[in-house]
């Protein structure tokens, strides 16, 4: 059967950009920048973009296209193709299917809240919530964490989850060019229009309450951009910037690898990778930085925003923004645009997360796309249930840690070493420039081979000792949540074991056939 291909070059770039542009661009980036030195945060941010983000982008695009040439679209096959003398490397590749699937399990539920909220905004359902406390109660009622005047059951939330889940599985079922490419092309266009409208509206707010002259948009931009030079001396700020670059570009998950595997041998990867990264940066720094924080400062003031920023990214999106948008003209429509743009950002990311597992079943077990999507849909639907019904036990955070943080850094480290050291920089450089529309500066030969892996090892070790050890050992977790978290960890171990077993079965069958 002929291998599926992307419909156009712009299509694959927008698909990768769609995978990268997610909730983090609009919610996490502004909060991170505001907490870590404002304008000064952008210095480590750009350093990390050039030393970590772009090299990882190019590595994933290149090895993805390389593996696709051998009929592999997922990390086990691609890693094995690069280092076929090593019997175990394909099992490290399992992370490239496991990680995105784990993220998909909780991400699709969070995404469904955005769909629900976009309708609530239009219908004015949260209009009665005029304080932060009321808005938090509304969110908790919707999530089914508590029963209150707003929601008496989890049914509305579950309904929107079902719709969102079906949308994701259907898009993946429709395939690369007719499903993912089409959704990302139109989705990103709508997302950028909505984000631009909101950014312009926010920047035009000026000083909404003349009795409070400090509450204005310029101070909001100042909160985000005024540099705090002392922050540059803090290792934590450098790590926060590196982490932000890492997560925002969708590197190290295994999805870019899968997308790039559908390119032909002479399709460009250098310019495409750079364009996808640049598109993501426009969404993050320019649009993401111009909406939430400036709007919140204009209505809650410089002291209010400091408290809000500490509350985390979700509070900014689900509590602060609805409160702000209720106070401006056409608030219902702007509220709808806000949640819909986040929903689209979520969908273009979650379909990319679903793809590695689906194409693994297709490539290695010869399932049709229909059956592969159905199997993926049934399995992940079951795995989503604990997250939905035990949300208040911290299960989503646990999945985010393992799938969205731990696996990401480990996987990126493995693929960087494979690319620069096992594949070999000479061969890697030639492969990167095959069919290339630009020439990557030669300094990147050195950066990819030495700096990027060193940077990753530094992040890995620092996070491990400073931040991960308490999480891994379940310190700082309420005692009543521990059994649930152990349960979800057992579920993850089971999922990884099943995937590793499937990889073993595939290669055993290949070995038997070759005898």
């Amino acid at each position, binding site marked *: 059967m002929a291998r599926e291909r992307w419909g156009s070059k712009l299509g694959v770039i927008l698909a990768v950009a769609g995978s990268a542009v997610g909730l983090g661009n609009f919610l996490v980036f502004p909060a991170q920048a505001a907490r870590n030195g404002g304008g000064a945060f952008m210095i480590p941010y750009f350093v990390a973009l050039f030393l970590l983000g772009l090299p990882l982008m190019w590595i994933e695009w290149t090895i993805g296209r390389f593996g696709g040439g051998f009929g592999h679209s997922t990390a086990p096959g691609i890693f094995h193709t690069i280092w076929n003398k090593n019997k175990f490397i394909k099992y490290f590749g399992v992370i490239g299917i496991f990680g995105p699937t784990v993220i998909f399990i909780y991400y699709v539920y969070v995404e469904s809240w955005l769909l629900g909220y976009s309708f609530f905004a239009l219908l004015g359902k949260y209009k009665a919530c005029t304080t932060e406390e009321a808005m938090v109660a509304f969110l908790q009622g919707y999530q089914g964490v508590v029963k209150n005047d707003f929601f008496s059951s989890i049914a509305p939330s579950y309904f929107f989850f079902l719709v969102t889940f079906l949308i994701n599985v259907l898009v993946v079922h429709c395939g690369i060019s007719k499903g993912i490419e089409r959704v990302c092309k139109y989705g990103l266009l709508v997302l950028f229009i909505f984000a631009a409208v909101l950014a312009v509206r926010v920047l035009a707010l000026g000083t909404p309450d003349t009795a409070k002259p400090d509450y204005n948009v310029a101070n909001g931009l100042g909160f985000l951009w005024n540099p705090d030079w002392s922050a540059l001396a803090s290792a934590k700020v450098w790590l926060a910037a590196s982490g932000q670059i890492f997560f925002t570009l969708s590197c190290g998950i295994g999805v870019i690898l899968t997308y790039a595997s559908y390119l032909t041998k002479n399709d460009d990867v250098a*310019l495409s990778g750079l364009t996808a990264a640049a598109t993501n940066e426009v969404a993050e720094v320019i649009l993401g930085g111009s909406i939430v924080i400036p709007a919140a400062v204009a209505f809650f003031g410089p002291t209010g925003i400091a408290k809000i920023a500490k509350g985390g990214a979700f509070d900014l999106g689900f509590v602060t923004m609805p409160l702000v948008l209720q106070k401006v003209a056409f608030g219902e429509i702007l509220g709808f645009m806000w949640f819909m743009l986040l929903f689209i950002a979520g969908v273009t990311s979650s379909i990319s997360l679903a793809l590695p597992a689906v194409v693994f079943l297709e490539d290695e077990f010869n399932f049709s796309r229909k059956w592969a999507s159905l199997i993926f849909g049934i399995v992940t639907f079951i795995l989503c249930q604990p997250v939905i019904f035990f949300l208040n036990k911290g299960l989503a955070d646990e999945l985010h840690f393992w799938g969205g943080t731990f696996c990401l850094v480990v996987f990126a480290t493995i693929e960087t070493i494979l690319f620069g050291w096992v594949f070999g920089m000479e061969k890697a450089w030639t492969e990167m420039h095959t069919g290339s529309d630009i020439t990557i500066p030669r300094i990147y030969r050195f950066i990819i081979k030495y700096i990027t892996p060193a940077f990753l090892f530094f992040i890995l070790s620092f996070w491990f000792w400073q931040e991960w050890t308490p999480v891994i050992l379940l310190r700082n977790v309420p005692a009543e949540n521990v059994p649930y978290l152990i349960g979800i960890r057992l579920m993850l171990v089971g999922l990884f074991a099943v995937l590793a077993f499937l990889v073993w079965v595939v290669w055993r069958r290949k070995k038997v056939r070759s005898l």
Partner: protein
Amino acid sequence: MRPEGWIFIAISWGAILSLFAYCMVRILQQKNNKDQNNNDK
């Protein structure tokens, strides 16, 4: 916002928009070249 804040915003936005514009121009140039080649054939 302090003047340094405006400088940081200008440099960051300028760098990102320039990179984005460069990429888009190169992509469109390549597309036009390929279309031209196809028409010539």
